[in-house]
């Protein structure tokens, strides 16, 4: 409600006290003025909110309703949608490409995230206590994460290519580098490598969490004779677990929507339709959705988008429901 001045007190014995109180106590011209002021305030709020209201209606709500409807139809741009019920969703779970893309995305989440989080945690824990030179290291670890995904994709495409710098380094040690972009077994590890290079954001978030751990806990552990590993295992990990929970959750959602670097790699490996070369090994969920859109299969693409939302939603719910199991809280009552 738009703020209103408190009504003037009215003696309960006054005639008409059961009616709207201000009617009696204020002269009509003041009352009118107040109403006008109220309306003006309401209009001010509306005017200030209007960019968001219009944007929400046009660019969010309308598209949501549309794509939800289209997901139950066969739809191409420029033609009316034809209702097919759940057919798109049924097709989704029997479609080979879709299962491949889900598999690839799960692979990237299961193998990529622990590597990323592990190395980010290692870097952060080495930088948590104030030491000279920390600033330089922090900048060096962070800068790769401001490189746009397509640029780091192009960069690693060059670094890892046959005869590129990395294979040169392999040769120095008398080893043979894998053919990252021809061998379906090695394409996803290459993708994980780029993602790991860009772990700066993650490191900063973990660092902020580590800084908050009271040093007294470490001192107490040390007095108890806990070594480096024991302190990490029994102090750092439990104390940092809420932050890890957060980065795992946002990381999972991010993997589901990611495709920039996979796009650069696979188009470099073989230009053309988004098939996730080599051999479908880079076909991520978001890439397949984009392909369906580009092929003009709008109903199917909409269904895929909503399944993506559903997966995000379910993952979030499962993680929140099981939060207590892997997030340490000082007092379980308050968890």
């Amino acid at each position, binding site marked *: 409600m738009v703020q209103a001045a408190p009504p003037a007190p009215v003696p309960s014995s006054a005639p008409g006290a059961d009616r709207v109180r201000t009617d009696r106590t204020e002269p009509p011209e003041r009352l009118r003025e107040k109403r006008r002021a109220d309306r003006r305030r309401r209009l001010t709020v509306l005017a200030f909110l209007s960019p*968001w209201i219009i944007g929400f209606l046009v660019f969010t709500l309308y598209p949501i309703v549309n*794509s939800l409807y289209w997901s139950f139809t066969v739809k191409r741009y420029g033609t009316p949608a034809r209702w097919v019920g759940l057919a798109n969703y049924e097709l989704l779970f029997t479609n080979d490409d879709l299962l491949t893309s889900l598999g690839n995305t799960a692979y990237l989440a299961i193998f990529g995230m622990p590597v990323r989080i592990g190395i980010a945690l290692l870097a952060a824990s080495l930088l948590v206590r104030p030491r000279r030179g920390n600033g330089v290291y922090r900048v060096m*670890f962070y800068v790769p994460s401001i490189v746009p*995904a*397509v640029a780091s994709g192009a960069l690693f495409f060059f670094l890892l290519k046959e005869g590129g710098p990395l294979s040169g380094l392999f040769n120095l040690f008398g080893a043979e580098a894998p053919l990252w972009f021809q061998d379906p077994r090695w394409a996803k590890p290459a993708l994980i490598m780029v993602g790991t290079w860009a772990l700066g954001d993650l490191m900063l978030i973990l660092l902020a969490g580590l800084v908050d751990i009271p040093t007294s806990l470490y001192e107490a552990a040390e007095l108890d004779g806990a070594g480096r590993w024991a302190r990490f295992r029994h102090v750092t990990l439990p104390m940092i677990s809420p932050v890890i929970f957060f980065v795992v959750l946002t990381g999972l959602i991010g993997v589901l929507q990611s495709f920039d670097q996979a796009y650069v790699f696979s188009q470099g490996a073989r230009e053309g339709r988004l098939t996730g070369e080599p051999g479908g090994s880079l076909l991520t969920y978001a890439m397949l959705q984009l392909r369906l859109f580009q092929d003009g299969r709008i109903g199917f693409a909409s269904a895929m988008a909503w399944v993506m939302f559903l997966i995000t939603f379910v993952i979030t719910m499962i993680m929140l429901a099981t939060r207590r199991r892997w997030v340490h809280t000082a007092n379980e009552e308050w968890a």
Partner: protein
Amino acid sequence: MSRSRRLLGVVGRHSVLIGLAVIFALPFFFMLLQSVTPIAEAKTSVLWPSSFDLGNYAEVFDRVPLARYIRNTLLVCALVVTGTIVSCVPVAYAFSHLRWRGRGVVFVLVLSTMMLPFQVLFVSQYEIFSNLGWLNTILPLVVPSFFADAFSIFLLRQFFLTLPAETLDAARADGASEFQVLTRIVVPMAKPGIMAVAIFQFLFAWSDFFGPNIYLSDEENLTLAVGLVRLNTAAARLGESNLTMAASVIFVMPLIVVFFFAQKVFIEGVTLTGTKG
């Protein structure tokens, strides 16, 4: 014993840090090196070129309309930043310093739109822009930013909430309208926060590939991100990674420069929100 163990710890810590730092810096090193490697050697697998050739930078401007890409990208960035600030500042003000019924509920609605994957929205947005005849123009990339995105509203609100309400009330008591309070008091006081949002939006618009990739098609309309991907694909066929790397340096350098000027904003922003925008 304890001293030698501590020394071992210091040495161990530094060797891990230096090792990691080298691994993180090497890609940049090879990017710069390859960008000045003569074309003849770029096609072979030599690690260190016999001479440096800055001509790659000129060559890449000849090969693709890079000047156009830069111009388009800057235009998109400028409009996205302007649109975001102009639209999000009043909205964030209404969510922080105006009182109205339902404010809490509506704010939760704003935040919940951040949960929606972009994939759910763009399929239908594409049809809207197509009907408006905006395909192959930058309009679909910049017009939505004039209608307040949830992330920037959230960030600006956080900054606005730190401003003392008494100062604003004093101005109101002096007869200032809400618009005047916003433009004369809140905006000047919240400049660092507004700068932070502007920088995040710049970063996002400069780096974005998804939107430009689906909306722009003609060569001369592309942004740097899309141009780079196309160049990379073509260069992969021809083995001209020196050109891709020269273009990458041009693409990445401005961001690194911005980072060094606004380091504090970056680091605080990332830890504040957990994302980069």
